[in-house]
């Protein structure tokens, strides 16, 4: 059996090839397949947005799972995505343009608020409970989505995107300014993830034992959650909520190369990018010219797999802690 390191290198190569393949297919397919203007002005920013959002969501999933010690964490399931969507809509209601840094900043604030609330309600005796994180996520998502719906109904602003855009995500409105607003967040967030990866490994021991091994647990968790919000919020501001990428991609990668966080971050980033580009291509082409919501595609595949992971995790742990 090849070593894990060799497998990581192989997997990186395979996933990179898959990603490039999916990018090329996505760029060249659809109506007016080879019109350079359409490719450059419409499809290229769309595909690049999908690459960045996919990488960001997958790495955010790694960070949430590692720092909360919770294999079921995902930006959408813990409420970060809905909080970010609410932030972006509030920003738009205040007159900020979409796909701008200012709108992203509002999304980040919304995501941050969500994560602070979830961690606050799920802390007991210095531990963060697996189930409470998800229950808190349900509550926050319901609340934030409701406020989004109300704001959009009430404001009547032509510039506001429809409620369905925020609920299930879409790359249809991607443009170059959106790419520019996501890219720095993904680069910085992934950089932080790589930097704290060794500490996240030790955090698997639990807070007390990790602290006794020399890890500043509170600081590392703050960096991890902050980076997860950055990676999620910047994407949500531009494309809405896309669920399950942050859950499923790190899971699949862990099965193939093991749980060590540095390689997990690298491979998950590439695999997340591939998954979202592929999902968007399917969403765009399968019943063309009608376009399906990309978040619906990821959820239709992701939700059943989530149930499988829940069942597996529960049977391995013998219940919930």
């Amino acid at each position, binding site marked *: 059996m090849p070593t894990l390191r060799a497998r990581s290198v192989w997997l990186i190569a395979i996933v990179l090839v898959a990603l490039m393949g999916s990018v090329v297919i996505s760029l060249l397919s659809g109506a007016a397949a080879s019109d350079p203007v359409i490719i450059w002005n419409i499809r290229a920013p769309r595909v690049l947005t999908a690459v960045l959002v996919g990488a960001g969501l997958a790495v955010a999933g790694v960070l949430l799972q590692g720092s909360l010690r919770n294999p079921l964490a995902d930006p959408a399931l813990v409420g970060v995505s809905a909080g970010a969507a609410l932030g972006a809509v509030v920003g738009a209601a205040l007159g900020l343009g979409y796909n701008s840094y200012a709108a992203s900043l509002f999304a980040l604030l919304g995501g941050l608020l969500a994560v602070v609330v979830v961690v606050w309600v799920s802390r007991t005796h210095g531990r963060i409970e697996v189930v409470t994180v998800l229950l808190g996520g349900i509550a926050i998502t319901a609340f934030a989505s409701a406020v989004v719906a109300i704001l959009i109904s009430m404001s009547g602003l032509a510039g506001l995107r429809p409620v369905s855009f925020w609920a299930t995500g879409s790359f249809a409105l991607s443009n170059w300014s959106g790419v520019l607003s996501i890219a720095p967040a993904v680069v910085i967030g992934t950089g932080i993830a790589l930097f704290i990866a060794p500490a996240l490994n030790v955090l*698997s021991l639990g807070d*007390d034992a990790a602290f006794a091994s*020399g890890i500043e647990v509170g600081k590392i968790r703050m960096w991890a959650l902050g980076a997860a919000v950055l990676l999620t919020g910047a994407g949500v501001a531009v494309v809405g909520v896309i669920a399950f990428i942050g859950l499923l991609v790190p899971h699949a990668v*862990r099965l193939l190369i093991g749980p060590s966080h540095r390689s997990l971050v690298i491979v998950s980033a590439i695999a997340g990018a591939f998954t979202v580009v592929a999902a968007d291509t399917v969403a765009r082409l399968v019943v063309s010219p009608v376009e399906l919501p990309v978040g619906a595609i990821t959820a239709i595949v992701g939700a059943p797999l989530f149930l499988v992971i829940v069942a597996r995790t529960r049977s391995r742990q013998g219940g919930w802690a």
Partner: protein
Amino acid sequence: MSKDYKETATGTGPIPAMSIELVNCALRTSSGRYRLEPTTLTFASGLVTAVVGPNGAGKSSLLAIAAATLSPTEGEVLFGGYSVSDMNARQMAQSRAVLAQDLSVAFGFNAVDIVSWGRTPWRGTELQKQDSTAIKVALQSLGIIDLANRPMSELSGGERKRVHLARILAQETQCVLMDEPDSDLDLAGLATLDLAIQGMNALGKTMVISSHDLQRVSRLADRIVVVAEQKVVAHGEARAVITTEILSEAYQTQVKVQWTDQGVAHISIVG
């Protein structure tokens, strides 16, 4: 009082003396009730000190405060004369290793990964060069070389405990604290644990171990601390503390203690 803390990392060689001192340490709940009444005591350098007492008496609180994994609400903890409030997590981890009761590890890490985390506090220091040696020695000492590349989830409870003991050995600290390390171990596991404790003691480490097994503790420990009703009620050499009077009072149960010539206390319940 405490000295100013500077780097105490000393490299290998004989372990310098390091005691753990509690100076007027107390722990109160938010409602003001004591979980540990004000306590001043020294876990002497190079000795094995056992902390015993009834369930809920405050053993775990005392141990966690001594390990600086829990901050007392009053008082100060000193490692080798330095106040822990002047140290960061890494400096503390260069001084003491902790074996907690909860040994669960998230995600599918292998045994050798967990042992290697013991080296965390030495990352970026001179001692990092010895990482691979320290990990290998720790795996060998606990007899788990064969388990190194197995996921923790596949190991038995006793094997997992050995992996964590190896992690603590690899941490190469002067002080080691263990919270009920003998719970849920079978005879073979207990034999391994005793060897590990004696081996670390032979290296001159300062050890603090909580336990319910008074007979084993009488054989292994140089000093005994008895905790009852949220306070330390006795502290001293094993023979002076493991007595009929002190234990009967602490456990609120009439017991009879008989010391053998081999230095083991036999404890039986009267009645």
